[in-house]
């Protein structure tokens, strides 16, 4: 059945380079010595460890708790001992460190995922309970962006009409989803059935690019016996068809509103590997392993490896025969990935590929001026004007960049790919976005500071006024009292006792103050001596 497909604007055909790994079956990786599980696994996730140094943990044990609904817990990939909870290199373009749980553990091989029917697994569970299972299993989007799955499945309370499974894997070199679809299609389809149970969509579409004929065949066969309205759709190979917004446009013709989310169109998208993880989650198996593609000219054993989350990348490189010498390791695909600064960083849930190359010896093609050729805007899938964004960001005119819809850019790299002047366009946009985000934060802070300042000014003014009022009231009272006395016709006799009383009272007050001062002196002197000694 050929479904009418739509197209998106632009797109490119980069050299696929999947030949190196597409026919290598998933191999289980055995790590050595230690596993470093970062507590930060998703979008601004804040996690707190619930284990301590010295604890023994078993495979699948939850290691952290999180209160932010957007965060997910992390788990131990195998049995081991917690040797440290400390800052360790984090797999992030900044190369910064992040808090991680270090386990002394080796082996950590993944286990099979049995293909059991879902009905008994889901029996008696409400939707919210199923979603909670998915969250406690630590499932986030495994396509590379890492959006937490549980809140996504709640889809803002909207009914989902179309569920889309993303099996496109459009980026060059990456083949992990391809292999997963070929080798474990039943488990993926069972995961889709779980999603079907949760969301009750009218239709389920699995999009796969036509450069993966075996995967399409395998998924079609697995769909034949499924209890859900699933259709496997073959899509023409075009980068970046695997981007969520682009895939939605291809399959439905609709465009996700700028700044909005797909559920507003009644559509939900999940990566096929995430569906696999969802299926494991309802079997109470947490997300502890994932398949990654290791490719490049500087490894002798490239392939698709199922590795434990937390495996130090250096171990992977050694076992894959990485060449000696300076290496350039890219995390992710060649179009959207970032260079890895510290090889001791671990594999996290969002790492789907590693590209290992030797550092280039010849200088790269020089960057020239922009010639306004508009090849970039012809290629942009979001119909932005990259050349205008470039002029704005190059001249640090970030406000202009923002009004040119900078934040709609999906950083796919199509513009950089076609630029005849070899301008690193996406790097400019990533820089500009970060600067703007920080500026926005600062604006919020500044507004808060201004309010506090105004309040302080008001407070001081109020205190002044109160003081003045009190003083005026006192003076008035004093005047009134004196006037009273005069009226009462002061006699010397009457005055004297008052005056004497007064004098006595004043003398007593003076004595009290003197005593207090002396006491204070005594207190301060030893204190300041102490302080002096400490300093």
């Amino acid at each position, binding site marked *: 059945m050929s479904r009418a497909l739509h197209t998106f604007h632009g797109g490119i055909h980069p050299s696929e380079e999947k030949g190196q790994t597409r026919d290598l079956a998933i191999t289980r990786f055995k790590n050595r010595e230690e596993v470093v599980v970062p507590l930060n696994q998703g979008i601004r996730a804040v996690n707190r460890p619930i284990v301590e140094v010295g604890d023994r943990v078993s495979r699948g044990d939850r290691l952290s708790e999180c209160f932010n609904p957007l965060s997910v817990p992390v788990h131990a990939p195998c049995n081991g001992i917690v040797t440290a909870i400390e800052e360790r290199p984090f797999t992030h373009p900044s190369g910064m460190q992040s808090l991680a749980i270090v386990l002394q553990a080796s082996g950590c091989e993944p286990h099979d995922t049995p293909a059991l029917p879902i009905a008994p697994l889901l029996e008696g569970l409400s939707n919210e309970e199923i979603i909670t299972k998915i969250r406690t299993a630590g499932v986030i989007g495994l396509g590379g962006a890492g959006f937490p799955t549980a809140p996504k499945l709640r889809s803002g309370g909207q009914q989902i009409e179309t569920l889309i499974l993303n099996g496109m894997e459009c980026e060059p070199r990456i083949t992990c989803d391809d292999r997963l679809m070929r080798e474990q299609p039943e488990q993926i389809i069972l995961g889709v059935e779980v999603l079907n149970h949760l969301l009750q969509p009218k239709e389920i579409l699995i999009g796969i690019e036509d450069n993966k004929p075996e995967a399409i065949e395998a998924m079609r066969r697995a769909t034949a016996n499924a209890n859900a309205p699933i259709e496997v759709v073959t899509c023409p190979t075009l980068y970046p068809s695997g981007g969520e917004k682009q895939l939605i446009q291809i399959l439905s013709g609709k465009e996700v509103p700028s700044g909005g989310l797909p559920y507003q169109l009644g559509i939900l998208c999940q990566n096929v590997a995430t569906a696999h993880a969802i299926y494991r989650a309802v079997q109470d198996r947490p997300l502890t392993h994932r398949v990654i593609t290791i490719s490049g000219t500087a490894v002798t054993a490239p392939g698709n490896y199922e590795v434990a989350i937390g495996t130090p990348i250096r171990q992977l490189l050694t076992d894959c025969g990485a060449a000696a010498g300076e290496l350039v390791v890219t995390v992710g695909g060649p179009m959207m990935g970032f260079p890895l600064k510290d090889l001791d960083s671990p594999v996290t849930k969002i790492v789907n590929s590693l590209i290992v190359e030797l550092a280039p010896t010849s200088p790269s*093609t020089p960057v020239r001026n922009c010639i306004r050729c508009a090849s970039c*805007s012809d290629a942009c899938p979001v119909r*932005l004007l990259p050349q205008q964004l470039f002029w704005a960001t190059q001249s640090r005119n970030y406000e202009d960049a923002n009004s040119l819809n900078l934040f709609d850019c999906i950083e796919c790299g199509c513009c950089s790919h076609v630029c005849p002047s070899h301008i690193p366009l996406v790097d400019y946009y990533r820089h500009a976005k970060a600067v703007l985000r920080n500026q926005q934060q600062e604006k919020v802070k500044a507004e808060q500071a201004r309010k506090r300042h105004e309040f302080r000014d008001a407070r001081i003014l109020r205190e002044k006024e109160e003081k003045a009022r009190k003083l005026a009231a006192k003076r008035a009272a004093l005047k009134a009292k004196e006037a009273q006395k005069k009226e009462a016709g002061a006699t010397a006799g009457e005055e004297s006792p008052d005056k004497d009383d007064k004098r006595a009272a004043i003398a007593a007050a003076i004595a009290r103050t003197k005593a207090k001062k002396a006491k204070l002196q005594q207190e301060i002197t030893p204190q300041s001596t102490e302080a002096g000694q400490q300093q």
Partner: protein
Amino acid sequence: MVPHNSNTTSREMALVILAMIPGLFALGWIFGPGVWIHSAIAVPTAIVAEAAILLARGRNPMGELNDLSAILTALLLAVSLPPLLPWWMVLLGTGFAIILAKQLYGGLGQNPFNPAMIGYVILLVSFPKEMTSWLSASGMGGETISWGAATQAIFGGAPVALDSLSGATPLGGLKTTLAEGLTLQESLEKIPSGLLAGPGWEWVNFAFLFGGTILLLTRTISWHIPVSVLAGLSLMALIFNTIDPASYATPLYHLLSGGIMLGAFFIATDPVTASTTPMGRIWFGLGIGVLDYIIRTWGGYPDAVAFSVLLMNMFAPLIDHFTQPTIYGAQKGEKA
């Protein structure tokens, strides 16, 4: 670093230069070797001028000259000039184009006006007589001019007016006769005429059309600008020719006269100075076509590709501003 496709600026410029060869050849074959001699003067001048300015700006000439844009500018200017123009005028024009109109703005990508056209216009305004003395096409009423004569004319020192050979272009002739009150038919009988348009010039235009098609097929340029330039010109010609066939030339005549094919495919498509949005490019091209017709018919010059292009260069940023495409996911009524 994101992987790149094989396209580079140098490659694009090289393709444009190659696509000019048919036109260059046709010009030389039909109007004598003057244009080739001019090319031989302009190209080295451009290279030296650009290298000098780059050095003065503290940049590496070798690194930047190899984008071939200077050579392209020189060739575009050379093919626009009358074939017997003195050598020092060619030098001057090229110098103005490279130094004034390109490098002083910041080099490649920074100039608002088409450098070759600036060079042409400065020469036209400074030396109107020499710049409007064209040769008649060889083998069609005019005599073939030899290498020796051409060299002597160009390097001779004083501007030579070869009265027997030089004169206005067919467009110029047409303008004069129409102004005198002859009808179109009578004019076409009086001035030299070729198959479809002016003799020689139609072949030159065909040659540049051929080159332009190659550029389209190799995706070096996009169709928006050339098609809209030709459409603009044709539309205007169609309208006026229909209203009064006796006083206005046909669209076909206009399309094969003067420098319109060169302009549509090689000059207006200069990415640096044209509009950059898709709709913007169409308006840009239409503007050039319409302006060219207006100046050809009612303006002071017989052909006006240069002026039209420069005028539209001026409007390019404004056009860009008003033709932003709607981005993915924009709300109804909202633009970029």
